[in-house]
């Protein structure tokens, strides 16, 4: 280490940080060459001794970090970061892992440059897997797709999985092992652990505590057992702020044992949600549920299902309901109790509207014995889950639409209790070695635990944190180990149905990160096996014993097959017979103060529990109902706001009964129950990284362990008399504008639709022109392909997934809160949300809006330099090179789908982002217009394939990014010159319409109108 200092020049304050970085880069390169190191990441660690490097690492961010005040200068700062020392060499050294990983079935094993390869793997959130096929270009994973053969995905993904590719390339990830803030190495950590572990051996490990997040990995579970066998007195704790405690506890109440409940929504005629957000990412099995749900929402099928939502905080799931009842979260339990008891007798008095609602629901449920499903929300207390179980049994749904099986997660106890126990041990001085396997409890533990102070003050002699970022928890630990991303490390995980997927990495760890299983192996004294060895040896032992007993193939072949297909055979959970305990749930009704304002805590639709706070795509993802980006305001119903004289974006102080308070801005959310407010978790991070730091408000400070999801605990909400700017991408969420109503979304009720399937009596003629056919039409009809898209508004669940898929596929930059607020967000595809009717409980509709690819495109006519032109196949092409940026095309676009680079929004310098981008898509520069291209790069790939084989592109062979990742199958794309293509069939439906087609733009993207299936009696009584 010392001798390195001779090489290191004395550090001088460089005037220009980027200049300095360049100097560093050169030096490091030469250093590396001198060393002739076989493994690049290792040599970096050795290099760490140099003065500049240490200085740079010590400062965490290079010079210019203090510049980061707003979006513009952040961008500038990103550029400076670009040449950061540690990363500079990395780009050139992308490698696959050393162990063989297996590409997806039909792909050649050898890399063909310019051709993508696909690898099956899985993304895990809260312990539940989303099975994936990851696109790899030249050994760089660049795009996430759902594993279309896996039953839990069927090709769909959710926003978190879709955006996780950006986590891998996050330049703020921690990049080295650190000890007390100094750069260290994995080897040093292993050495440092040797002595304490030896001494623990004698104490049977009584001083060892491990805190992990929820996981379902069989390998890690096995390792846990091994570890506890070796150290019988050691304890393994779990904490996850967004957990499923209530689910398992509810099962315990109902059946005396924790079970996993899964639903078969395509078999359900009536779906009742008890505050369950089962059509949005974060709900285990969401991808499959969305697919099954949408399948039964086709009004042309003749068996459209009906969906009742009893809901507190408005969600995109509730927006899909035929009837939505807006109630406070704490009242859901009594509503559920009513549903259970209704056949018997009523207990508490219900308001008439609610009673009518419940009456209708009960009637419908009873009429469809065995073909209904009750889904309770994860955040509802155990009693609601127990009631739902009882109701599902009562209605004969079990075994038909509802299935029970063994829990997927390794830990089914209470997370709060587990953490509490750990804290008690820490305070009592019983803990000698504390290991965090991921997680960030300093930030997200319940406020009453005071975990931060305990960790700071208790004398735990050795604290080790494994995490992707040097976050709030890492700061208070002795050691921090960069955690390998799931795309960098071997592992295994289970989907909501229990099916195990082997997580195979697509790229060697960028920063020498380690996975949890590798760390646990060290703790268990198993040497330093690689993740691959650990996972494979576990499955080898399983394979010979139980799972594929009698399988003739050798293990290597079996392993290969598992990797190829993306799941381990025969691991899907088997339905389990459970019998209900005869208990009464009458004591359920919450005894809390009914008059106090209720505060709800919900996982954020964008940043989840805060772990994605540094993911720019997710930060800039408009939340499905409010379209707010970059923030977590207090959601409040319009009636309540009016009563309290609070307007949108007013700063308010929320004061709890125990005196705790938090100032945050208000967003008026139509449909939010009265006397209740909602906050999202996950914001106000201090050490998330440059994107996530200081964005929004830390609502964990109000969250207590006794009521983690909702509590009638708000003493008062006072207007602070200040304004706060919230950046929403959609300012006007109603189609009623001024004196007119605009039919952007067309809707009918199922009954009316059956009587009159036509939606628009004054539909424009197919060809309103003076000529027999337009020139364009003549050309396009003679082309082999005419691309078109149809979007089913009935199927769309508003899950936002397509936005991220498009962003990832098409190298779309993020612009920052300030620019979003100025109306300059860059999403090529947006999902418009429209509210209709009663503001206290409106109907809501989602409409994904990509480019319409108009045949008579208004944009093309007005471009002075011919930068946007029509292709013979009907695409409205954008030629970035030719664009001079008059923005006339955008003005003239009635759909406003064009996006303009007002600044240099793209980060052209950060090496990680260079790796992350899709090489088939131009990276746009400042001053040019851009827009949806129907993923023209994908069309061209398929066209080349088809032409080489001298055939036409088959229907369904080609999918756009939004279409491919849509969990609800709401988007269809294809050749409309082929009358047998699926898209032609969709367009032939009477529900099909073109947005603003009265302008005679002849859009190629059309919509199939939304059809609701309301209960006619309930509809009549409510109107």
């Amino acid at each position, binding site marked *: 280490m010392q001798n390195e200092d001779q090489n290191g020049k004395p550090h001088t304050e460089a005037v220009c940080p980027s200049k300095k970085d360049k100097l560093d880069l050169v030096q490091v390169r030469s250093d590396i060459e001198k060393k002739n190191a076989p493994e690049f990441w290792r040599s970096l660690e050795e290099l760490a001794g140099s003065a500049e490097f240490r200085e740079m690492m010590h400062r965490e961010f290079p010079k210019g970090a203090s510049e980061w005040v707003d979006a*513009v200068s952040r961008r500038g700062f990103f550029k400076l970061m670009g040449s950061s020392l540690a990363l500079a060499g990395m780009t050139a050294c992308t490698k696959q892992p050393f162990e063989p990983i297996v590409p997806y079935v039909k792909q050649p094993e050898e890399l063909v440059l310019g051709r993508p390869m696909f690898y099956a793997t899985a993304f895990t959130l809260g312990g539940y897997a989303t099975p994936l096929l990851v696109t790899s270009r030249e050994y760089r994973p660049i795009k996430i797709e759902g594993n279309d053969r896996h039953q839990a995905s069927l090709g769909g993904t959710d926003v978190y999985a879709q955006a996780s590719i950006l986590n891998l390339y996050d330049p703020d990830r921690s990049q080295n092992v650190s000890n007390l803030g100094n750069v260290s190495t994995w080897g040093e950590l292993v050495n440092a652990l040797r002595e304490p572990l030896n001494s623990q051996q004698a104490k049977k490990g009584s001083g060892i505590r491990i805190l992990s997040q929820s996981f379902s990995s069989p390998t890690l579970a096995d390792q846990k057992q091994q570890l506890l066998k070796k150290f019988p007195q050691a304890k393994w704790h779990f904490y996850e702020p967004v957990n499923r405690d209530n689910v398992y506890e509810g099962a315990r109440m109902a059946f005396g044992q924790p079970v996993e409940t899964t639903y078969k929504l395509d078999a359900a005629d009536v779906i009742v949600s008890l505050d369950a957000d089962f059509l949005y990412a974060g709900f285990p099995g969401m991808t499959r549920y969305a697919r099954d749900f949408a399948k039964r929402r086709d009004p042309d099928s003749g068996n459209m299902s009906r969906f009742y939502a009893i809901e507190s905080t408005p969600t995109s799931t509730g927006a899909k309901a035929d009837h939505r009842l807006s109630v406070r979260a704490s009242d859901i339990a009594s509503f559920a109790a009513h549903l259970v008891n209704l056949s018997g007798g009523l207990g508490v008095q219900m308001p008439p509207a609610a009673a009518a609602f419940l009456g209708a629901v009960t009637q419908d449920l009873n009429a469809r014995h065995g073909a209904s499903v009750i889904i309770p929300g994860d955040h509802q207390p155990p009693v609601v889950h127990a009631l739902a179980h009882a109701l599902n049994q009562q209605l004969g749904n079990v075994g038909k639409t509802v299935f029970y099986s063994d829990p997927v997660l390794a830990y089914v106890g209470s997370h709060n209790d587990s953490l509490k126990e750990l804290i008690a041990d820490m305070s009592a001085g019983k803990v000698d070695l504390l290991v965090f396997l991921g997680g960030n409890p300093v930030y997200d533990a319940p406020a009453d635990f005071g975990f931060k102070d305990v960790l700071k003050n208790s004398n735990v002699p050795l604290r080790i944190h494994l995490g992707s970022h040097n976050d709030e928890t890492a700061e208070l630990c002795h050691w921090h180990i960069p955690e390998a991303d799931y795309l960098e490390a071997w592992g295994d995980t289970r989907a909501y149905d229990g099916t195990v997927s082997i997580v195979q990495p697509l790229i060697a760890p960028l920063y020498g990160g380690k996975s949890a299983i590798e760390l646990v192996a060290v703790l268990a004294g198993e040497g330093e096996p690689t993740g691959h060895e650990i996972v494979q040896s576990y499955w080898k032992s399983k394979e010979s014993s139980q799972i594929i007993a009698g399988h003739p193939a050798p293990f290597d072949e079996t392993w290969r097959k598992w990797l190829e297909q993306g799941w381990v055979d025969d691991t899907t959970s088997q339905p389990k017979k459970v019998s209900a305990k005869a208990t009464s749930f009458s004591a359920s009704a919450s005894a809390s103060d009914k008059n106090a304002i209720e505060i709800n805590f919900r996982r954020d639709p964008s940043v989840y529990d805060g772990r994605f706070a540094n993911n720019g795509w997710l930060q800039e993802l408009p939340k499905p109902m409010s379209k707010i980006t970059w923030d977590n305001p207090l959601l409040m119903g319009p009636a309540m706001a009016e009563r309290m004289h609070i307007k949108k974006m007013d700063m308010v102080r929320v004061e709890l009964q125990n005196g705790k308070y938090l100032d945050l801005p208000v967003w008026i959310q139509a449909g939010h129950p009265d006397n209740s407010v909602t906050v999202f978790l996950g914001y106000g991070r201090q050490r998330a990284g440059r994107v996530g730091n200081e964005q929004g408000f830390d609502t964990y400070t109000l969250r207590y362990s006794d009521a983690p999801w909702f509590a009638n605990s708000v003493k008062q909400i006072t207007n602070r008399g200040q304004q706060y700017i919230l950046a929403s991408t*959609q*300012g*006007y*969420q*109603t*189609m009623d*504008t*001024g*004196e*007119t*109503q*605009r039919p*952007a979304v067309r809707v009918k009720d199922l009954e009316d639709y059956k009587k009159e399937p036509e939606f628009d009596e004054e539909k424009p003629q197919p060809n309103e022109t003076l000529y027999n056919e337009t020139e364009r039409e003549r050309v396009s009809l003679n082309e082999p392909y005419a691309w078109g898209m149809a979007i089913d508004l009935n199927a769309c669940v508003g899950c936002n997934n397509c936005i991220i898929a498009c962003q990832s596929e098409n190298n779309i930059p993020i612009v920052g809160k300030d*620019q979003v607020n*100025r*109306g*300059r967000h860059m999403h090529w595809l*947006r999902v*418009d*949300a*429209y509210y209709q009717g009663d503001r206290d409980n409106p109907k809501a509709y989602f*409409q994904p*809006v990509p480019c319409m690819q108009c045949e008579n495109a*208004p944009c093309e*006519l*007005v*471009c*002075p*330099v*011919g930068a946007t032109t029509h292709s013979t196949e009907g695409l409205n092409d954008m030629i970035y090179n*030719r*664009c*001079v*940026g*008059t*923005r*006339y095309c*955008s*003005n*003239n676009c*009635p*759909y*406003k789908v*064009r*996006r*303009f*680079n*007002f*600044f*240099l929004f793209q980060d052209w310098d950060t090496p990680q982002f260079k790796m992350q981008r899709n090489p088939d898509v131009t990276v746009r520069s*400042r*001053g*040019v*217009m851009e827009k949806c291209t129907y993923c023209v790069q994908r069309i061209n790939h398929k066209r080349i394939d088809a032409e080489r084989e001298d055939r036409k592109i088959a229907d369904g062979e080609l999918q756009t990014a939004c279409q491919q990742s849509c969990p609800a199958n709401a988007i269809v794309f294809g050749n409309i010159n082929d009358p047998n293509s699926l898209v032609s069939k969709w367009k032939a439906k009477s529900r099909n319409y073109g*947005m*603003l087609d009265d*302008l005679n733009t002849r859009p190629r993207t059309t919509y199939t109108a939304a059809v609701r299936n309301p209960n006619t009696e309930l509809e009549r009584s409510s109107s």
Partner: protein
Amino acid sequence: MAESLRMAKPTEVEIGEQKAPVIAPGHTFASITDKIASIVLRRPITNGWLFGFAICFLILQWFLLAVCWLFYKGVGVWGVNIPVGWGFAIVNFVWWIGIGHAGTLISAILLLLRQSWRNSINRFAEAMTLFAVACAGMFPLLHLGRPWLFYWLFPYPNTMTYWPQFRSPLVWDVFAVSTYLTISLVFWFIGLIPDLASMRDQTTNKALKFVYGSLAMGWRNSVRHWHRYETAYLLLAGLATPLVLSVHTVVSFDFSIGIVPGWHTTIFPPYFVAGAIYSGFAMVLVLAIPIRRFYDIKDFITDRHLENAAMVMLATGWIVAYGYAIEAFVNWYGGDPYETFLRWNRLHGPYALSYYLLLLTNIVVPQILWVKRIRTNSIWLFFVSLDVLVGMWLERFIIVVVSLTRDFVPSSFGQYYPTWNDWSILAGTLGFFAACMFLFLRLLPAVSISELKTLIPQAEVTVKHEEEVHS
């Protein structure tokens, strides 16, 4: 033809006896030359001029800074966004082009219409046109996302197989504005030649003599020169006349070709031209009133001129008002939901205040011009003209920006907030314009010496003689 034109003028003076004269009595050829040339040649630079010029020059420097920042960062420094892709830049462009109309109208159309009173104001009105078009011409360049590629709007041979897209009104703009600028410049320069010769003859400074002499291109006041001069001048007037109408018609196509509600209107061409003349005459008055006051040339720019300009404003103001009324009528009569909403939005939307201000400044206030006392009162006229200039700017703001904020899809409705850079560039072009005017007053004869001479009685001598012979 030229001869007959000149003969007509004194007659008109005689007919309009009851009106104020277009030139004060008592002037001779010599006194006119002397008076006008002395402003440039003998009058010392006053503190007032220095002060005014310095302020304008400072604003111009600020403008350059703002433009540098704009080019360095990108058009994002403005308030433009999606859906409002065009903001102040295009508003200013249309406004300045409109102002530029008055000069050519005065010099060409009024010449052809034998409105001899134009002779004393056409020179600086033409200068004003040039400077206004120069201001206007900057904006299409500044507002580009990639301004360094502005030349791609011109058809020129290149190896990129690149050609402009001639269906776009922006390409028409390029031709309309550049043609207009060229013709205006040539017309102005031709008109200047005899006066430059006078300046050459008047000055005692050798250097100035050389400069004016070069610019005068050897003018020797011969009959042959005069003959060719008058012919060229008339031909150019003939060429310039259709341009007055075409430029703003083409500019209005930028909007009426678009499908945005509030843009897509067939009334735009005449309505834009009338508005342009309206604002142009307002600017003429805003300039003429202080000029004649500070340079003491009330003899040449008389109340008669002011009154005539005021009457043109009143007339064009009513055409503009008619335009507003027809627009509103069509919004209602057409029954198109987007047009109906447009009307509602203008009256009740977030920018309703600007619409009411527009009606006030452009229609209500100018009605005081019906009163003769106000038409002849330079103070009143000055402020009414300023009011009209503000009003016409608001009109363009409402057309360009307010229409874009809310067009078709409610989810994409937006707002427009101008930034410091937007305001700086608007102020900057005003500074540039004024600085140019200051320089013009000191360097060139602000009133046409040769044409003014045709207005005095002595110019009639030959005519009288002929009449005597005939009688």
